[in-house]
């Protein structure tokens, strides 16, 4: 009888310790999850900022200004254009 009781006591202690560890683990994992969620949000915000930046750099007016000014480009003149292909008009 006493042996059984001792055994049960040991099992109980083990279970109690297990509960504590698993709760600790759960909390740790949860706080990791929280951190990752926060990171996901941050990255999303960053993505938005980068999109903004990309749109600002790629503004049509700016591209045109640089193409004309810094690169000396100009729209193709009809006189200097040759069409190639199936339904080329000349």
């Amino acid at each position: 009888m006493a042996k059984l009781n001792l055994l049960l006591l040991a099992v109980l202690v083990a279970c109690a310790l297990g509960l504590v560890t698993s709760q600790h683990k759960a909390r740790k994992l949860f706080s990791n999850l929280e951190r990752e969620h926060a990171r996901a949000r941050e990255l999303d915000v960053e993505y938005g900022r980068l999109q903004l930046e990309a749109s600002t750099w790629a503004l049509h007016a700016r591209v045109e200004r640089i193409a004309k000014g810094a690169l000396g480009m100009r729209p193709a003149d009809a006189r200097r254009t040759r069409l190639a292909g199936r339904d080329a008009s000349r």
Partner: protein
Amino acid sequence: MSAAAQGLVRLPVWRARFVLAVLALAFGVLGARSVYLQALKTDFLQGKGDARYSRVIEVPATRGRILDRNGDALAVSTPVQSIWAIPSDVELSREQRRKLAALLGMEPADLSRKLADAASRDFLYLKRQVPPETAHNIATLAVPGVYQHPEYRRYYPGGEVTAHVLGFTGVDDRGQEGVELAHEATLAGKPGSRRVIKDRLGHIVEDVESIRAAQDGVDLQLSIDGKLQSLAYGALKGAVEASRARAGGIVAIDVRSGEILALANVPSFNPNNRAKVTGAQVRNRVITDLFEPGSTLKPFTIALALESGRFAASTRIATAPGTLAIGGYTIRDVHPAASLSLAQVVQKSSNVGAAKIALALPREAMWDLFRRVGFGTAPALGFPGAAAGKLHPYRSWKPVEQATMAYGHGISLSLVQLARAYTLFARDGELVPLSLVKTGAVAGGEKVISTETARAVRAMLELAVQPGGTAPRARISGWRVAGKTGTAHKQENGGYAADRYIASFVGFAPASDPRLVIAVMIDEPGAGHYYGGTVAAPVFAQVMQGALRLMGVPHDAPLDPVLMPDEADEAREST
């Protein structure tokens, strides 16, 4: 040794019993107390316990982005900080006060006054929506009583180019105008909340329950093409400035899908900084403003004549002597001619011709056509403030009204309605439903006139942009163009202003297989020129040329340079 000293001292029995009773009572009290706490007061106590460590926190939802048809961002919300203070807690050294005021962009004296004025309040916004760097600098000052909380702010990289289509949001990130308002429900998202357990340091250690899941706003992809939009805005702005006009509008519609590829207004505003914006700048004229279209309506009269079977494209109308008097009102032509064919009525933009044709047709049929091409009904764009236009019921029409309506007076509509109506000629008689949201699919149209009629009118519209027509300046190299000018007197105090006009041009290309309808309107052009053919048509040509190249539309004409016509080659018009 006495017996008392030798033997055990016998205590009275009652003392043991007394102790037992006291102990039993103590247990009883404990038991009752535990029953009381566990069974009766449990809710209250648990609530108190939760209040110590469990918290309900808001989960913010971000507003959806607005993208153009190629996926480029047109509007993005990004978090910024708002600076607030508890005025009575604020302690500023002289140095801190100077630095804080500089960061907030105000005078140190103003800052002190602002804090003093609000001394009795618990909450005062010092400045809302400051950029992250400024917020960081304010945080490093570590002024007691000054706090920050995150808010969202909307940025529009396109600035004034896309201002009217997108509209803007208020300081609380809610839509107030344009697409931002029209699609508020899907863009906004719903903030959620959840209950968590926090530890002593404020870290969340356990998620108890999610009360409401946060729903982020859905991204919205518009039909607008960023490049084409920018091209259209640039060309329109240039033309409005060059002709010293009051305002202008342009809209480009994809013929196949009914998508609006570009929609711009001048004057515009910068949605990122609306401090000095006036109502006139914010108005989206293309959609919300009505104007009398003038001659751009003639092709519809001609289409109706062809549909009636009583006229053919070659039928000649006697237009001598270039005037027509009805009901005390005289209709005039700028170029009087003895007689004109139906095609020439469009080409030369003859008011007398159009009026005579209209008077030969039943007014009910004319009203029915106008109604079916969407005049008098607001286009189903879901855009706030879309104007329906004015189309009076035909029973009230007098002959003079029917005659003037034939060339676009006595009826008013918005530019977007006019552009949509022209899809009739571009799509072989079908009217296409418009969309501001990307569909990417061919839209089913509603058949309004026969294919033959539509093609016949299209051929006439092609003549109108040839030398001898009203708009040779609308031609472009490499593609055949068709279109019609309008030069309408502005309405003023119930009459027409003699020297104030609205110049317009509506057209499409390539004429062999139309892909794009573009409508341009210039309000009160000054600087000497006011004809639709000289003011509005060049804008059309510039945007159409760029658009067809961007869209990779095959050429249907030789790539010869377009020779600009002499003044003599260009027909004038008075509506």
